[in-house]
Structure formats: structure tokens, C-alpha cells
């Protein structure tokens, strides 16, 4: 079922610094001849939690797709650089572009189904996928955006309150901040201070989906109980108005935490990317 895979620390410097990102490339046992799929996980998650444990890697390999996974800075097996710049969304997008090329992604070429790359992102990964598609139209073929939001919830994160809480346990008044920090602290593998650096960098570069809209076809997916993705139809509308084909898939009974394992989500994504 699972073919060859390699995992390594990505060590190609971008703009003179090493992003310390952990990259895995998985080759299917039987290749469908289609372009690779780049998987981008969410805040406080990792490629393991978001894509391996949930069955995504197995399902995509079964469908004959080549897979590239990347752990975001401060997450999973990636390094936790001390400089703030390593965490800025624009810097992460530049690193992703380098990683895609190093993994063998070639520019889209008419009539060549193996050219380009498909991108699947969840939550923060969906924001990065939206921006990556908008800024790299010559390589991105299609997008799947899971649990997407028109505004990044991390931009409203109360960093000062989080720092006070971590220092002496002062309760956090803002519910969203408290929830996000609790989620981040549940996983012992998370580097909390690196995650807070990421939040800080996101506040400096908040998500502005209207600023650059992807023109390739996109599938937007969220659970109908997902409050963090309640603005998904507005995001789809932005895409449609810009001339993109934007399909939406709603998963009954699912929320932001448990939509990711949904079989309907995986099958919908695999069918959408199977062209």
C-alpha cells in the first residue's frame, strides 16, 4: 500500500538562511502519473498528526499520488529558529516554493498531468495554500482548503495575556486565545515559544484573502459545526468573483478538530485533484 518514502531536514538556504524545515516525500507503490500533492498542516499540529495519523497519507498513496509533507517552523520535527523572520507567512511561502522545486515539482505545462503541484491545506495550512496558489500560479494546479477562514483567528490572539499566563498563571480573558493556547499546550512535542513567535509573525502579516486571490480551481471543505470556518462561503465567493472555480463541501456533524479524518473529505479531495 505505501511505497517508498524519504524524510529529511530540508537544508537548502533561502535568502541566505536555513529554514530548518522537516520535509518528507512519499512515492506511491503504483503511480497514477499525476503531479505531486503538497500537504500543509494547521497551527499547533504537524504532518504526523494532521496527515499521517488521520489516514490522509495512506489514502493519497492508495490513489497513486506522490506526496510532499512539510512541518511548519516550531512544529513537528522542524527546527524552532530564534529569529522572528523565520515564522513570517511570506518567508514560509518562499521556503515552500524552494521545497517544492527541490522535491521535483516542475512548472505547469499544458497537456502534462505530472507538471505542477496540487496543494491541500488545513486551517492555518489553508491560509498558506490560498496565498501560495495566488502567488505561484505557474506551478499550483488545484487547491483543497480545509477548515478555511476569511480572517486568520491567530491574528486576534492575545499574546500579552498568553505570556502572562505562561509566566504566572494569570487567567486569559479572551476565549479564543485561551482555547488556542490550551490546544497548543496539550501536545508535549510543541515548542510553545516557537508557536508564540509564529502567532507574533502572523499578527504582523495578517491574512488578507482579497489582496491576492488564487485563480486555479479550489475545493473548500469544513464541518458544519466548525465555528472557525463559518466564513468559508465568503472565501469561496472571493474566488468565484476572481474567476476561479470554487466548490464547497460541508461535512455533517464535524467540527474544526475532527473534520480532518472524514472519509468524505478525503474522497472529495482525491476526486477533485484527480484530473
Amino acid at each position, binding site marked *: 500500500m505505501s511505497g517508498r518514502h524519504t524524510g529529511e531536514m530540508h537544508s537548502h538556504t533561502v535568502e541566505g538562511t536555513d529554514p530548518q524545515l522537516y520535509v*518528507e516525500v512519499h512515492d506511491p507503490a503504483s503511480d497514477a502519473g499525476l503531479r505531486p500533492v503538497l500537504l500543509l498542516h494547521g497551527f499547533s499540529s504537524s504532518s504526523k498528526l494532521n496527515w499521517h495519523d488521520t489516514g490522509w497519507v495512506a489514502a493519497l498513496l492508495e490513489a497513486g499520488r506522490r506526496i510532499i509533507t512539510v512541518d511548519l517552523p516550531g512544529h513537528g520535527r522542524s527546527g524552532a529558529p530564534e529569529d522572528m523572520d523565520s515564522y513570517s507567512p511570506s518567508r514560509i511561502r518562499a521556503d515552500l516554493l524552494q521545497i517544492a522545486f527541490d522535491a521535483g515539482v516542475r512548472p505547469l505545462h499544458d497537456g502534462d498531468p505530472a507538471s505542477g503541484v496540487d496543494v491541500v491545506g488545513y486551517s492555518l495550512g489553508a491560509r498558506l495554500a490560498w496565498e501560495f496558489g495566488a502567488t505561484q500560479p505557474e506551478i499550483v494546479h488545484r487547491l483543497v482548503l480545509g477548515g478555511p477562514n476569511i480572517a486568520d483567528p491567530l491574528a486576534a490572539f492575545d499574546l500579552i495575556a498568553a505570556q502572562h499566563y505562561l509566566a504566572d498563571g494569570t487567567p486569559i480573558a479572551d476565549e479564543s486565545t485561551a482555547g488556542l493556547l490550551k490546544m497548543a499546550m*496539550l*501536545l508535549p512535542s510543541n515548542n510553545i515559544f516557537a508557536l508564540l513567535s509564529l502567532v507574533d509573525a502572523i499578527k504582523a502579516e495578517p491574512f488578507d484573502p482579497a489582496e491576492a486571490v488564487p485563480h486555479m480551481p479550489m475545493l473548500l471543505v469544513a464541518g458544519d459545526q466548525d465555528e472557525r470556518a463559518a466564513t468559508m462561503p465568503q472565501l469561496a465567493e472571493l474566488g468565484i468573483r476572481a474567476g476561479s472555480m470554487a466548490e464547497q463541501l460541508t461535512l455533517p456533524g464535524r467540527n474544526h*478538530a475532527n473534520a480532518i479524518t472524514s*472519509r468524505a473529505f478525503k474522497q472529495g479531495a482525491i476526486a477533485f485533484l484527480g484530473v
Partner: protein
Amino acid sequence: MAEISFPLPDLGEGLIEATVLEWLVSPGDQVERNQPLVEVETSKSAVELPSPQAGKVVRTFGGAGDRITVGEPLIVFEVPDNTAGIVGTVPKDEAPTRRVRLSAVLDED
């Protein structure tokens, strides 16, 4: 024919229970080893459990929304007699174990 029962496996991180989200197989289905069986959610994440065993599904325990404790029965398979009696564990398709840490811990130098 014999029956083999598998409990909810240890999901790590000190988790003691999980909630069933959705069964992906039904009694009567013939399943392959590593075929996805069920989606469950813990307090930390949602995961898909692959089948530890090839065989015909006899019974599944718990419907959507039900909690199952680690070690309690999850699924029963019917298998040919000569393969029964093996105590199974759910295999994990582990990511490569090589771990590279580049953040230097200067204090320990």
C-alpha cells in the same frame, strides 16, 4: 473458523479513551490488513485506525458519539482456524524515526 477480538489500542500521550466518529467497515465486510477501520477522536486529535488483521468483520463496538476506553473491545473478526490465537496489536504506519535536532542547547555544552 474462529473469532479474534481486538481492543481499542493505546493511543499514546496518556490517553485513556476515545470517541467513535464513524465506522468505515460494517459486520459482514471482508477487510484487508491496514485497511482503515474507524475514525476516533481523543481530547487531543482525531485519528483513523488501520486494521491489524485481514478477515471478515463479525462485530463492531460503539456507534458514532460513543466513548470507548483503551483496552475495551473495538472489533471482532472471523478468521480461518489456523490463524487464530495470535494476540494482535494495531500496527502503526510510522513515519521515519530519524530525528534531527538543529536547535543547539548551549547550556549543556
